[in-house]
């Protein structure tokens, strides 16, 4: 799907690069022993180091290094065995050191790649430029007091991974899928919880536009701190539109930091050039270079779980699923787990996939529940598939049973038993029902015998109705054919 902005002077293409900030899963902060726990009374998860008291020094958390390497491996990226922490200097209320310890020209992870699964079953490769570790800032609250801004340093010093993409995306949709894919990968790896509402993941979105056919990279604007996939997509749309209109009306795009206002659906400038930052990066002299061996990287590699791309390939080759179905099932680790649990040892993979994708997802969506909160366990859904496979119930009845499982959380066998939904496979009982319908429908019998074979379906419907849907459909068909000749 090619995304185009139709302007007055022709068609435009949008060029998008993303910087995703993902909070590292760790107990304590990047350079101090204070807790990373979300929430908490203001300034309680703060050590003297986080508050930048005079003479305080950073000591790096080994877990954060490991998580960054792990994420780099998940992004199929180059792991740099030698990297350097640098200071990014600027003054702000929520930045107590007046510098952020980050990484500049020597990041811990270099180039990698992320594969996007597009809705039409195709894939797109998006380049990763780098991943680096850095400190989060504190939180400023501007609306608590008429004269003052309040500052809480609980977040100050929490480890972030900044994952920088190449400017490879060409539509809001791709950017949305990219953010979801990054989220999926870090959640598989358990290096970030991906919780965008709590700010564990947020994106800086770089947008520029160019005429279709041009390969130039034009001046871009950076939209800061966008905190949902939907807003990422909306912000790109609004910003691209703004730039096209600006250029077409004779203006020039200025390199700017902008902010997305979801209520107005527009971006606005935060600082213009005259206040542009000069961050004066230099290696942090309180720290030494991060160095590790190839064995260290290999040891982490050995603990990586199967990641979504590989899992998708396996579902396609091993289970014969379509690219689309496989892509949907691997989107997060829990769904894959659930699906494989439904599959058990030898249930039908395609049938299981259908049930998870159409029935379970539909029901969860209706109840706004995540798969971990599903009222129907994978074990129970597996049992339902067994009841279909051994002809205890028909596929149609199974849908009713499933609805009741969602509502009650009961095992399918219990529901089938209680509601008397067991399929009728007793030849005598089916024969009686068939005979009864034939006897009461001379007109239809005549039509059938007159060559209208379509009417056979009507007979099946009548028989199923008479048996409250419990008659085994195969047996009904077979018997009808015999009786009607």
């Amino acid at each position, binding site marked *: 799907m090619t995304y185009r902005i139709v302007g007055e002077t022709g068609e435009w293409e949008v060029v998008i690069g993303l910087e995703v900030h993902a909070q590292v899963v*760790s*107990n*304590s902060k990047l350079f*101090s*022993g*204070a*807790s990373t726990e979300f929430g908490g*009374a*203001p*300034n*309680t*998860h*703060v*050590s*003297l*180091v*986080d*508050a930048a008291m005079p003479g305080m020094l950073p*000591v*790096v*958390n*080994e*877990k*954060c*290094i490991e998580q960054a390497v792990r994420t780099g491996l998940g992004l199929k990226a180059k792991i740099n065995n030698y990297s*350097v922490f640098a200071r990014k200097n600027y*003054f702000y*209320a929520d930045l107590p050191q007046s510098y952020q310890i980050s990484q500049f020209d020597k990041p811990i992870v270099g180039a990698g790649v992320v594969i996007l699964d597009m809705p039409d079953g195709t894939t797109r490769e998006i380049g990763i430029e780098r991943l680096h570790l850095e400190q989060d800032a504190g939180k*400023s*609250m*501007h609306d*608590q*007091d*008429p*004269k*003052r*801004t*309040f*500052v*809480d*340093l609980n977040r100050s010093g929490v480890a972030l991974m900044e994952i920088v993409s190449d400017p490879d995306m060409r539509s809001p949709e791709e950017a949305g899928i990219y953010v979801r894919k990054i989220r999926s990968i870090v959640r598989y790896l358990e290096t970030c919880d991906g919780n965008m509402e709590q700010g564990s993941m947020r994106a800086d979105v770089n947008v520029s536009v160019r005429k279709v056919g041009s390969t130039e990279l034009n001046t871009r604007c950076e939209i800061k701190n966008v905190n949902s996939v939907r807003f990422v997509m909306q912000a790109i749309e609004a910003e691209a539109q703004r730039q096209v209109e600006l250029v077409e009306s004779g203006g020039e795009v200025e390199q700017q930091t902008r902010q997305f206002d979801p209520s107005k659906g527009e971006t606005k400038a*935060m600082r213009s050039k005259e206040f542009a930052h*000069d961050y*004066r990066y230099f*290696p942090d*002299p309180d*720290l*030494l*270079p*991060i*160095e590790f061996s190839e064995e260290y990287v290999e040891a982490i590699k050995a603990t990586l779980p199967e990641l979504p791309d590989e899992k998708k390939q396996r579902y396609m080759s091993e289970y014969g699923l379509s690219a689309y179905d496989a892509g949907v099932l691997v989107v997060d680790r829990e769904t894959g787990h659930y699906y494989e649990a439904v599959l058990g040892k030898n249930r039908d993979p395609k049938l299981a996939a259908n049930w998870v994708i159409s029935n379970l997802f539909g029901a969860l969506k209706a109840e706004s529940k995540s798969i971990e909160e599903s009222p129907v366990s994978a074990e129970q859904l597996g049992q339902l598939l067994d009841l279909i496979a051994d002809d205890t119930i028909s596929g149609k009845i199974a849908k009713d049973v499933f609805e009741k499982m969602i509502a009650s959380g009961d095992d399918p066998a219990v529901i089938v038993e209680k509601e008397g939904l067991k399929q009728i496979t007793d030849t005598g009982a089916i024969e009686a029902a068939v005979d009864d319908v034939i006897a009461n429908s001379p007109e239809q019998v005549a039509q059938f015998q007159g060559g209208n074979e379509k009417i056979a379906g009507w007979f099946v419907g009548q028989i199923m109705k008479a048996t409250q849907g419990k008659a085994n459909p195969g047996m009904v068909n077979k018997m009808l054919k015999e009786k009607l000749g």
Partner: protein
Amino acid sequence: MSLDRETVRRIAYLARIKVEDERLDQIAGELDGILGFVEQLSEVDTDGVEAMTSVTELTMPLRADVINDGDCRDKVLANATDPFDGFYTVPKVVE
């Protein structure tokens, strides 16, 4: 090399030090003196020389991922100018 007033003003803003206009020339002169002095480094051939990032030959020590600090708000706020309700405060920032 000679620093102009605008450069001094820009640097002073980056460093968030208020410099009255009448001091700009004097400061420019002093900074010029220092920059003139350090200029002699250009004589040194540093082609292919690694820039020092640390004077020690140690490798970076790593800390175990345990919570053993924080929960000391009284200490954290003890010297603050205008704390309120557990927060630090600054003049209102208009965003």
